[in-house]
């Protein structure tokens, strides 16, 4: 990594983690972040959080269902995934994740079902005829205790998934830039930024520009988590340059000399400032700060995965990653986006996501809450 060295012969290694891994980390991060944003409403029943929880829970469902699809694709031999269950390796974080992730998905879906139960039985009457039978069966009385228990369980599972996704990167000692306890925290903080962003975006797309309170609420969440990202980032830089870990310090110092990485650092900083600025200066245009926040969350993960993998472990030069056009590259990214769009359309149409049951407020009619549009969009 020293630009004064001319390397004559070396081996170039292919990247082990593909863009699919970036997609998975992005989506699961959004899902968990969105769940955490939803829980004050759906778990603790805080009334001011109701509409925020509504949109956040929808985001959590959408991204939570798309995430494992991307994860499966990152396996070079995807059909072998069942080996995780036949031959569990308890010393590997990734192996634990094979259990945490389905648990999270299951608990998320269960929690969402319990949250939508009352609204589903209503939908059975007013919704499309084809699905009325299904809705009737799924719907029913609100079960606040069960809902809270499932919310708690989903929270624990979410924390487990958060831990394992962060740790499986942080344990790689061969890559000093990953090998820091701050990485899981930063992934969490950036996930919150991304989740708030996606919620803002979907709020605009599905609900419209009318509900200024929700938008403002989400903007505040965005700014708050962005401040957290900045704090963790500065702490990371400080610890890096201060030499608490020699290999870490060496890695960071060498990066500062590289113009490509200087650009990367500038872009990251700008990408964080932009949504905050948009949220601060243009609070009513939630979709703008939302898009910028999503961009930040995604490019942060791309940087952590693909750019860091372009740093060779035992060589003097860089091995830049060139994004292929096929399904392991651009097409895969586009495909994942397509899946998310599909899920947005289907889930927002079929689910009564705007009428979540809040535990303490289960006796209130959700339709009477201000700012709610009763017709489907």
């Amino acid at each position, binding site marked *: 990594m020293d630009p004064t060295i001319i390397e004559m012969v070396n081996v170039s290694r292919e990247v082990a983690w593909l863009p699919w891994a970036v997609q998975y980390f992005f989506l699961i991060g959004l899902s968990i972040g969105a769940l955490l944003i939803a829980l004050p409403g759906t778990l603790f029943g805080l009334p001011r959080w109701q509409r925020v929880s509504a949109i956040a829970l929808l985001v959590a469902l959408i991204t939570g269902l798309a995430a494992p699809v991307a994860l499966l*694709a990152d396996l070079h031999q*995807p*059909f072998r995934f069942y080996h995780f269950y036949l031959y569990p390796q308890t010393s590997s974080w990734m192996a634990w994740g094979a259990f945490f992730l389905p648990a999270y998905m299951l608990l998320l879906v269960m929690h969402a079902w319990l949250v939508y139960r009352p609204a589903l039985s209503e939908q059975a009457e007013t919704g499309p005829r084809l699905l009325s039978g299904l809705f009737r069966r799924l719907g029913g009385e609100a079960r606040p205790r069960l809902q809270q228990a499932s919310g708690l369980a989903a929270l624990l599972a979410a924390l487990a998934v958060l831990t394992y996704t962060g740790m499986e990167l942080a344990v790689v000692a061969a890559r000093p830039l990953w090998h820091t306890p701050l990485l899981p925290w930063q992934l969490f903080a950036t996930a919150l930024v991304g989740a708030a962003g996606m919620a803002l975006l979907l709020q605009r797309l599905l609900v419209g520009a009318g509900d200024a309170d929700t938008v403002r609420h989400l903007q505040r969440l965005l700014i708050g988590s962005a401040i957290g990202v900045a704090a963790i980032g500065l702490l990371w830089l400080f610890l890096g340059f201060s030499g608490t870990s020699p290999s870490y310090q060496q890695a960071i110092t060498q990066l500062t000399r590289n113009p490509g990485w200087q650009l990367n650092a500038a872009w990251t900083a700008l990408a964080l400032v932009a949504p905050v600025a948009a949220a601060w200066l243009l609070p009513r245009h939630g979709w703008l700060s939302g898009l910028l926040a999503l961009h930040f969350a995604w490019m942060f993960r791309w940087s952590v995965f693909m750019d860091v993998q372009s740093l060779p472990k035992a060589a003097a030069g860089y091995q830049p990653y060139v994004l292929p056009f096929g*399904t392991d590259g651009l097409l895969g990214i586009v*495909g*994942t986006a397509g899946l998310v769009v*599909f899920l947005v*359309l289907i889930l927002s149409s079929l689910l009564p996501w705007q009428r979540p049951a809040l535990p303490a407020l289960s006796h209130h009619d959700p339709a009477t809450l201000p700012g709610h549009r009763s017709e489907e969009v």
Partner: protein
Amino acid sequence: MDRSRRNLLKTGAAGAALATAAVGYSGVLGKMSKGQWAGERPPSALHGKSLAPEFQVDAITGAITPNPDQRTAFTMCMGCTTFCGVRLRIDRQSGDVLRVAGNPYSPLSADPALPWETPVEEALHSLSRHGKRGLEGRSTACGRGAAVLEQMRSPHRVTQPLKRVGPRNGGEWQPISFEQLIEELVEGGDLFGEGHVDGLRAIRDLDTPIDPERPELGPRANQLAVIDAANDGGRAFAQRFSRLAFGSQNYAGHGSYCGGAYRSGSAAMFGHLRQMPHAKPDFRHAEFVLFIGTAPGNAGNPFKRQGRQIADARSDAGRNFEYVVIDPVLTHAGNKPSAHAGRWVPIKPGTDGAMAMALIRWILENEREDQTYLAQPNPDAAEAAGEASWSNATHLVVQTPGDHRDGRMLRAADLGLGSDEQYVVLPDDGDEPVAHDRLTGPARRYFRGQVTTADGETLTVTTSLTLLREAAEQHTLAEYAAICGIPEQTLIDLADTFTRHGKRAAANTHGGMMAGNGFYNAWAVVMLNTLIGNLNCKGGTVVAGGRYPEVAPGPRYNLVDFPGKVAPRGRHVSRNSQPLTDRPLEAPWFPVAPNLTVELFSSALDGYPYGLKALFLRNANPLYGIPGMAKHLEEKLRDPGRIPLLVSIDPFMNETSAYADYVVPDTFMYEAWGWAAPWAGVPTRVTTARWPAVESPNARTAEGSPVCMESLFIGLAKAMDLPGFGDDAIPDADGRLHPLHRPEDYYVRAGANVAWADDPVPEVNDTELALSGVDHIRPVLEDCLKPEEWRRVGYVYARGGRYEDEARAFEGTKTRHRFGGPMHLYREEVGTASNGLMEERFPGTPPGTRPASPTVARSPNITRNRSGRRN
């Protein structure tokens, strides 16, 4: 927007999104559909693609059971110029080589090598871990040796003779029959529609001089030149055709664009500028080795032996061993796990002479050289003093500018003390000069003064050592440090360490000398060895132990002489002789160099001193190998008027073959015959055998031989009725003449010479023939050889050659096979030579920083910058 329209839109959008998702995911779905093995499924889930072993060893009895589907062959690798003995595993059904490993009999592939007369079954047994021996008996091929195997079945091989269609380097070829090839090469004609081309028959004129005004250039037959790459065991055969049968003087190897600078520098030290002897360290016993380039594990010859012995030395905790690699490039020879034993010292390229002269200066100033060694004036005195070799350090050199003897060694005849073959020294304890071989004790090392000749003239003379010291003192250590980029203290440390181990230290170099000033750089480096007198010593430097002569006058077959043999005469076209002085020179001459391929090209294309009518390349690619050559010569090479006939004999197309008129396939590696020996570094006698263990894919001649270099030259010779080929070509010990129609007629009979050298070897039995795979060529052996011969030659082939037992390498602390001549601190041949274009003579002792000849601006042909930089 009304609801149904909106729903329709939404459904459409959802469908499109799902379709996109499916397309993006299609690759993954494809992989999933393959089930558990999305990639390539190996034959075994446990051990992948590994081969079945070629034999099994019973764990209790140790008995060998060969695998009936495979056969073995002990033969020779041609991946590099080390030509290691290797062991092949061949699939009986397909006839293809499966894998290459090492030959445990060969000292190039095993350390220590098995005693040569070990039964083959025991040799195979020693390769296994039976008896808890683990890897002790292993014998390996290096990475290249294992990989070059792929080339044997490369789809890019040339298997038929090709004739060009259209202009040279046009890329269009037409396969022709072998008979047509011979016909056209011999008779010539309007071969390409570009005008008449002289065939070999017309070129082979042994009487008419090329230039009537300069008969010293030789006859017209010299206008055939042959260039090969290295002596892979086929050079003698090619020279039998081109020199001894056809009669051309011009045969060149790759040395001038490879390690030639080192070989010539070493040749100046050893005193044989044409044969170019050189020595290599005895790694097994050395305590300190200084590598100049030639980093172990990266380079060097013998490559694998050097790498392995250094690896053993530096990982042996009980061994006192240290090494330094001086190299512009950091290689893995300098690595952290071996940091206790080895380190890397960076140096500016091409400045190794300055480094060596700095060391020499410090050593002489601090009297750290072996003074006893340098003081011995002749071999008898040296032996009496317990030395293993001797030098001319004490011999007097005439240093009287203006005198006709200036630069020559002083002769005893000059002082009336003896003959012209005797040199002159001063005794250590007296003032009277004496002939060098009359003194029984040490002579004076330093002297600069006057002597009176027999005619009463006064001559200023110095000893060779004085001249070396004065040359070293041309610069201070600080100046040398600035030139080579190595700090002064490091230079001092190196010199100090080098001289702390008596004779168990060595400086090693080879290709690392490839710079424009490489000749003197190399001489300076090997001078370090001479200053401590380590030649022929355990732990010092050793020459090659020699070979069992194959292409020899006997004892069974005379392969060097035949009725009608021609003695080639005349100057080499590459100007490596004394300059012609009758006319202004158009290019420099190289009186101290061997045949130089680089100069051969420029000479031939410019017609100075004469042009060529035909050029044969054998496994050579000078257009690629010589830096800047393509750019310089492309236009001229494409012009058929300059070299009218250009033939390339090569299993592959290469950058130079692209310009040829004909490309003739050659047998490659394990399909070919040959006999080779290591260059140096093995102190025992070694001859490695190469024989066709597999069939060649090449087209066949009428005799059934594959088209190759040998069958080409046989065909050409027979078509022209040349001596030494065809019927009645090879005399045996009784004078009876045997035929040479196929390559094996030559090589197998050479094998008989190997088998009978000194003491005849035992006869091989049928079991060993089967185990070693030699039964594959049994019909050939029985056909070519006499009944009492073929089993002994089979014994040699069954072991992949003939190797002297390694226990015989040393007698006490000296090698058994020694170089007997003096080491030259001053070499008269160099000191009295000039390239003809400059007034001064070459320095006769390494100066280190002066180039061999300055860049010549006068001649329009010489546009290469001599320091090696591109123009």
